[in-house]
């Protein structure tokens, strides 16, 4: 155990400086260890299953981040994914993001999970997450997009909880925002979430972002930055690497806000 507070006699200026430097190093090590852990528990990227490729990147504003994402195969074989943004940033938000990940996985895989095949929807996940987060009274809420890809039926199902920007679907040279909205989870007891769905094109990419991405776009206003996103994705032909490059996410650090991005794609030329 490290202990840095057992100072009995008054310190000289240089002793104090040394003490602060030591404490700073300890905090930095602690933050870096947390950052590594956050990277470790994210799903692998790129990851391919059922013909769909998942790719992501997360850029923390400092070390720890409240932006998070997850994707995996559901017990019934469909593909599940979410991208979430916890209000605030830093350590406290990062802790809530871990809670989100665990709560979602517990709902789906836990001992008490009671889902008949295909009865699980993005909306049921959001409702459960909302109720669970309200219990903690943590003064933090979470905006997220939750989706299920059904490659058997070739359908995309999704629900939105207060999240900005909306997901962007790219197909046949066009990129458009997906519809849908709802309140963030962890704020209101009576929030309800609606399920949206659409058939999946043979070739497509679907891009999800946290709102930090809007701060790296050059346009002046939030609504013009948001409008620029589909254009940027069209210019990148919907491809992950092209989007990362155009957003300048490859070599950025010390961002004003956390940034998370998740792109799933199929058969892009």
């Amino acid at each position: 155990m490290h202990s840095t507070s057992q100072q009995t006699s008054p310190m000289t200026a240089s002793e104090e400086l040394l003490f602060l430097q030591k404490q700073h190093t300890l905090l930095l090590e602690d933050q870096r260890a947390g950052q590594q852990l956050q990277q470790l528990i994210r799903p692998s990227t790129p990851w391919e299953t059922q013909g769909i490729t998942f790719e992501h990147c997360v850029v923390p504003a400092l070390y720890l981040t409240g932006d998070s994402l997850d994707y995996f195969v559901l017990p019934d074989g469909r593909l599940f994914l979410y991208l979430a943004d916890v209000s605030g940033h830093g350590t406290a938000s990062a802790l809530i993001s871990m809670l989100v990940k665990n709560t979602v996985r517990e709902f789906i895989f836990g001992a008490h999970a009671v889902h008949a095949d295909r009865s699980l929807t993005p909306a049921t996940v959001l409702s459960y997450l909302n109720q669970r987060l309200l219990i903690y009274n943590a003064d933090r809420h979470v905006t997220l997009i939750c989706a299920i890809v059904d490659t058997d039926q070739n359908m995309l199902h999704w629900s939105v909880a207060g999240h900005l920007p909306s997901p962007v679907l790219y197909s046949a040279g066009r990129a458009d925002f997906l519809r849908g909205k709802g309140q963030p989870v962890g704020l209101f007891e009576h929030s309800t979430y609606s399920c949206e769905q659409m058939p999946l094109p043979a070739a497509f990419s679907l891009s999800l972002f946290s709102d930090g991405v809007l701060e790296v776009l050059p346009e002046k206003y939030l609504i013009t930055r948001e409008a620029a996103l589909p254009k940027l994705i069209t210019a990148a032909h919907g491809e992950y690497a092209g989007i990362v490059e155009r957003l300048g996410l490859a070599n950025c650090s010390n961002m004003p806000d956390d940034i998370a991005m998740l792109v799933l794609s199929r058969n892009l030329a």
Partner: protein
Amino acid sequence: MSDGKIQFAEYNETFVLKCVGDVRLTFCSALNETIEKILKTNSFKSIVIDLTEVISIDSTTLGLLAKLSILSKRKFGMLPTLASTNPDVSRVLDSMGFNQVFNLVHTPAPCPECLDDLPEQDQSEAVVKERVLEAHQILMSLNESNRDAFRDLVSALESSTT
């Protein structure tokens, strides 16, 4: 906190919260408590939130506003009136589904015809509309001539903790 500020005023039994500039909060629960304390020790009949001079607003502040909505509904049987004229701010409020938990007004001046889309509340629709118009009037009069009525919420917080 950055270039933004959060102020409040008490006027005609109305609690007015005003956010200005680039509002970013690093602490929230302390502000929640301060607001609850002010509401407890004075008799108000409604809450008004003025975001018309906001450039940008962070998620923590939005969380604080949500708490105010819950509190207002519990205490007054109606939701707070929230004024927002900046399209960027209105876009964020819309994405959070805040039209269901606030009486949103988007015009600079009170507009009775614009109030047909208000969410359901314990009070009758007529009462809610009247209060929203009244609240909007108060905001206008405070902003035009009575700017001194506003006090900084953060300094209120500091004086209440010492």
